[in-house]
């Protein structure tokens, strides 16, 4: 269980409150306008922003103040998810050992993860030689190897076209299902939520509204969500 327990984040005059929980294995979409605080919430889970008060817990353990690498999370940023000077295999291998001293079994694991995301044989390429969709797949392969139980998506597919984006979302859903991972994904598009998120929470007016099943929520939106959807 990922719990936000009276969390309050302040950045200058901006303030965001969150008080909700996500069950393991669920995919939760955080829906809202740009600037509403969706990415800020993700950053707090990943360890890049420290809440002013409240606690974030995973399976009962307080992770609010842990360094980013020691949290049970993998994160995909909007961009710069790969190191451009490292090969595809090295970028994926960082998910196993940050110093890249990999055993032969670990090299096999890297190749396996690349095959799982449809990039078998791409290990020797550089990120600059890949398309945007392929780069996202590499980052997902690394997430796979890190094996962290929580996956955070900060709109990593925003720059992709609609068909490619829905393909990537399906891949995320399949990988998360295999691993039993919990997913928090930021989006401003209700269609993304409808595609893979079992639950959706609206982020607006300085707070994260309680999550609801996505289908029911979008079919009969409450006042705040209606204002956002227009």
């Amino acid at each position, binding site marked *: 269980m990922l719990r936000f327990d009276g969390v309050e984040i302040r950045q200058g005059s901006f303030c965001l409150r969150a008080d909700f929980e996500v069950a393991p294995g669920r995919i939760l979409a955080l829906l809202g306008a740009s600037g509403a605080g969706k990415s800020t919430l993700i950053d707090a889970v*990943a*360890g*890049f*922003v*420290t809440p002013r008060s409240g606690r974030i817990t995973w399976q009962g353990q307080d992770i609010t*103040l*842990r*360094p*980013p*690498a*020691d949290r049970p*999370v*993998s*994160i995909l*940023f909007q961009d*710069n*998810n790969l*190191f*451009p*000077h*490292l090969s595809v295999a090295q970028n994926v291998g*960082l*998910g196993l050992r*940050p*110093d*890249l001293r990999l055993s032969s079994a670990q090299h096999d694991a890297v190749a396996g993860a690349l095959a799982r995301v449809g990039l078998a044989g791409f290990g020797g390429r*550089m990120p*600059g030689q890949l398309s945007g969709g392929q780069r996202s797949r590499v980052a997902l392969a690394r997430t796979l190897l*890190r094996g962290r139980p929580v996956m955070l998506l900060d709109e990593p597919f925003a720059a992709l076209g609609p068909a490619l984006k829905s393909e990537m979302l399906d891949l995320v859903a399949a990988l998360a299902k295999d691993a039993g991972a919990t997913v928090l994904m930021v989006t401003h598009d209700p269609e993304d939520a409808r595609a893979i998120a079992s639950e959706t929470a609206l982020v607006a007016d300085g707070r994260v509204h309680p999550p609801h099943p996505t289908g029911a929520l979008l079919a009969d939106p409450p006042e705040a969500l209606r204002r956002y959807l227009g």
Partner: protein
Amino acid sequence: MARRAQPLGAVVPAGVAAGALVLALCLGTLAAVAWRAEAGGGLGAADWAAIRFTLFQAALSAGLSCALAIPVARALARRQFAGRGLLITLLGAPFILPVIVGVVGLLALFGRNGMVSAALAPLGLGPVDIYGLHGVLLAHVFFNLPLATRLILQGWLAIPAERFRLAAALGFGPGDVVRRLEVPMLREVLPGAFLVTFLICVTSFAVVLTLGGGPRATTVELAIYHAFRFEFDLGRAALLSLIQFGMCAAAALMALAVTVPGGFGAGLDRPLKRWDADHLGLRMQDAAWLGLAGLFLLVPLALIVLRGLAGLAEMPAAVYAAALRSLVVALVSAAVTVGLALPLALAANRLGGLRGTALQGAGMLAIAASPLVMGTGLFLLLFPVVDPVALALPVTAVVNAAMSLPFALRALGPVLAETERSHGRLADSLGLHGYTRLRLVTLPRLRRPLGFVLGLSAALSMGDLGVIALFADPAQATLPLQLYGLMGAYRMEAAAGAALLLLALSLGLFWIFDRGGRANAAV
């Protein structure tokens, strides 16, 4: 964003140690000098003359360089022609051109036996006398016109292309463009360009040593050298050192206050479409300025190559030994520069905020320091302990490294900050810390600026004729000092050969390292 929840590691202590070392080099030597200066008397008439001449020639040199740079930069900004990119690249060359080599080239053109004198002789005129104030000015303009042109060109290219399009749409004539766009830009750019060139000319040593001298053309820097080397009046050398530091610090502070534009930025070869300048008269005017500036800069360089090739056979064996010594000094100096700059830049970036800026500032302090002051201070400190002559070469390498440090920090700092901005969070989330992060993320991203810094510091050290002149005896001469000795002995053929060798080694060192940073660098 909240502070990173990760240990500071060894980076900060290493950076602070490097900063402390630079502070000791800049201020510690000054303190040693100041302590010694009390023993000396006041300033004599000759010293006041040196101070006046220093400021006068620097102001005149900087003013001339900037005034001439305006039409050249304007022509470069608004014209497109074959070789334009190459010409702009060449404008960066005088920065790593050894000063003494440039002087050899200028003498070949304007000296007693130079081309100009030879051309005037049939008319019953000449020969031209290049020694004295006008020779110093000529050399300073030769070295600083390109730099000033690049600084001012930067200002021109910073005017958005849309402004010129709007001006064309509104029917602006050339005069309107000058009034509405160019004069306001120049008002912002010129003070910085003037102060940078002024600072360079105040600390200029090799030019004044070779072309100046005598009671009417002696700078403070040269007076320190004379007091130290010939009169061995340490008290007077110390007093003059303090004055030199004060002048440099004042100029550097003023330069900081007006925010100097960066002259080495990328994108200078981007041409601008200009509708207002499409007149035959303006085109001829621009062509004339570019032609004259090109001749002034290129003919001396061409003469170095031509006469040098002829003189290579005349060089005594001592030249080769000196070249080898210089190569070693240059490589050590480059290594020391990076050894100081990298921890300083990393620590300043990690500390951030005021403490980071303070550390960065300590590293930049060498801008205001004069190599001769540093050398004098080191001599005073080492004198009681070891024979300073034995340490002439190590001291030269270290002082050269300190002088290169400000450029190194300016090259590394922005790339380091950009690396942290783009990849810092990814590295944090993957648990890349300490040495692993340095090896896998930071150093690969810094490869290009590191290659540039190694090349620049090696070339600057290779061509430096400054602190080495204070200490060395002939058995320890570097190539620039050897070259100076040959010129002093009027062995001009051998000097031309040595100048060509020095030019080739300096440019070669820069090229090899800079290339090494670029080759196979995945972006």
